[in-house]
């Protein structure tokens, strides 16, 4: 059930005092739990829990023809799927706009930050390149799937092992992994989202809070440089509010990065 008007009013009222229903500060995340290697078949996989929100991210690799505009570069395909088991409001069938947006936002964050060294993923120019598939599945939706998926994606990519490739027969050997990891650069991009309710900004909303947000800004950044940005929902932001968002993002970024550092 979506948050009713009266509960929404209470959340806004309480937020005016910088307080939230679960006792967190506006810029405080819920407990972050990370479970590594949950899938045997995938090249890299991780389960991320943010409070009651649960997301699994898998990385799988294949060999494909390159796109005509980048004959010497590997491909990256990111898909997110919100499963009906994660929330009563998700139905089976075609992906909705929410899941498409999650996939695209995360794809852009990873791609534009230069995290993956695509040139090293080329096997034979113009003919064969590696393709990285990132698959995101929601297991339980209690808000902020976007950030949980972003955190999971980075960790899964960092820990993924390349599959074996038979160069003589030009065939991919499934289920066999080398010790090599995916060619990555040093910068680790994390896309984190700041949500706006009334004139206040919060991070990591629960479902109750996410229902009543007026705007959201997802910023993909590494070590202080922004690589991607996405604004969602209908409300607008002033210039002052935007700088507040950027400050908050930096603070939260450092906080989350500290927590996930041991998995990177």
């Amino acid at each position, binding site marked *: *059930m*979506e948050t*009713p*008007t*009266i*509960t*929404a*009013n*209470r959340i806004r*009222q*309480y937020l005016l005092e910088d*307080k939230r*229903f679960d*006792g967190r500060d506006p810029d405080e995340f819920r407990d972050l739990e990370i479970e590594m290697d949950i899938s045997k078949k995938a090249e890299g996989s991780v389960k991320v829990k943010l409070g009651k929100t649960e997301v699994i991210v898998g990385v799988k690799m294949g060999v494909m023809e390159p796109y005509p505009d980048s004959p010497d570069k590997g491909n990256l395909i990111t898909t997110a799927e919100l499963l009906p088991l994660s929330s009563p409001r998700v139905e089976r069938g075609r992906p909705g706009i929410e899941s498409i947006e999650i996939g695209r936002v995360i794809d852009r964050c990873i791609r534009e930050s230069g995290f993956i060294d695509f040139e090293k993923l080329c096997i034979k120019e113009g003919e064969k390149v590696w393709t990285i598939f990132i698959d995101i599945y929601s297991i339980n939706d209690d808000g902020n799937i976007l950030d949980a998926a972003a955190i999971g994606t980075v960790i899964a990519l960092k820990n993924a092992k390349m599959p074996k490739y038979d160069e003589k027969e030009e065939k991919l050997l499934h289920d066999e992994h080398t010790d090599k990891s995916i060619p990555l650069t040093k910068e680790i991009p994390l896309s984190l989202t700041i949500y706006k309710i009334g004139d206040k900004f919060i991070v990591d909303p629960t479902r109750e809070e996410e229902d009543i947000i007026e705007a959201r800004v997802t910023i993909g950044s590494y070590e202080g440089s922004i690589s991607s940005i996405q604004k969602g929902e209908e409300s607008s932001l002033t210039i002052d509010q935007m700088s507040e968002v950027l400050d908050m993002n930096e603070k939260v970024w450092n906080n989350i990065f500290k927590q996930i550092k041991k998995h990177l």
Partner: protein
Amino acid sequence: MGKRKVVVPGEVIAEGDKLPGEGTKKKGKQIIAMRYGLADESAKLIKIIPLSGVYHPRRGNMVIGKVDELTFNGWRVDIDAAESAFLSLTEVPRFVNKNNLEEVMDIGDVAVFKIQGVNKRGVDLTIKSRSLGKIDEGIIIKINSNKVPRVIGKEGSMIKLIKENTGCNITVGQNGLVWIKGDKIDNELLAKKAIIFVTKKSFISGLTEEVEKWFEENKPSQTKASKTETKTKSSEKAKKSEKSEESKESEKKNEEDNDKKENKKEKKK
């Protein structure tokens, strides 16, 4: 109270001369469980107290629901059940302008309803009675509808205890939605925590005492302590002064004796 045993659907609970109650079925001489829950044997009757599952609307139930849609002759209401519920214009105890339904209730509003009937098309609701109607303030929380009897307690003892300790007005719908209204949001959240505590511990006996204990632990310092405790652990003085402030506040609401004693001691000092 008879013996209680956890059963799963399909399990044979008893054989022979017993009567099948709620959640059970008689097949030949055997009584078989139809739901997951606790089998309760009292005298000859065997019934199941369900531990999980969705809410099944019943005639006469008082439920809380949220308006989802306005139609030409009424409101479509989400009562968190598989069936859709409908409140007809004729079931509102006042004059309603047909072109202005949102005057009475708009999308997103919540209200307390009574189920007038359940048929093939869905659930029919009414607000033609006292204590029913639109809710204008407070918070709504969701609990498992099977835990509703535990939250209310024997003859309303549990809900009375929570009301007294938090000073909030609480209405529990049979569908598991609970409306909490208090003069302070902190109190409402305390009541919410208490209700969630009850639903989590619903299986233990002597729950009322357990909840009383929980209130003793959580109430006096609830508003400030959660944040200040971690910060001012070292500075005892700051803590003491805060405590006295709190107990002055709580004295007005005549809280526990402990606090009063502490307050008196400090006054003497």
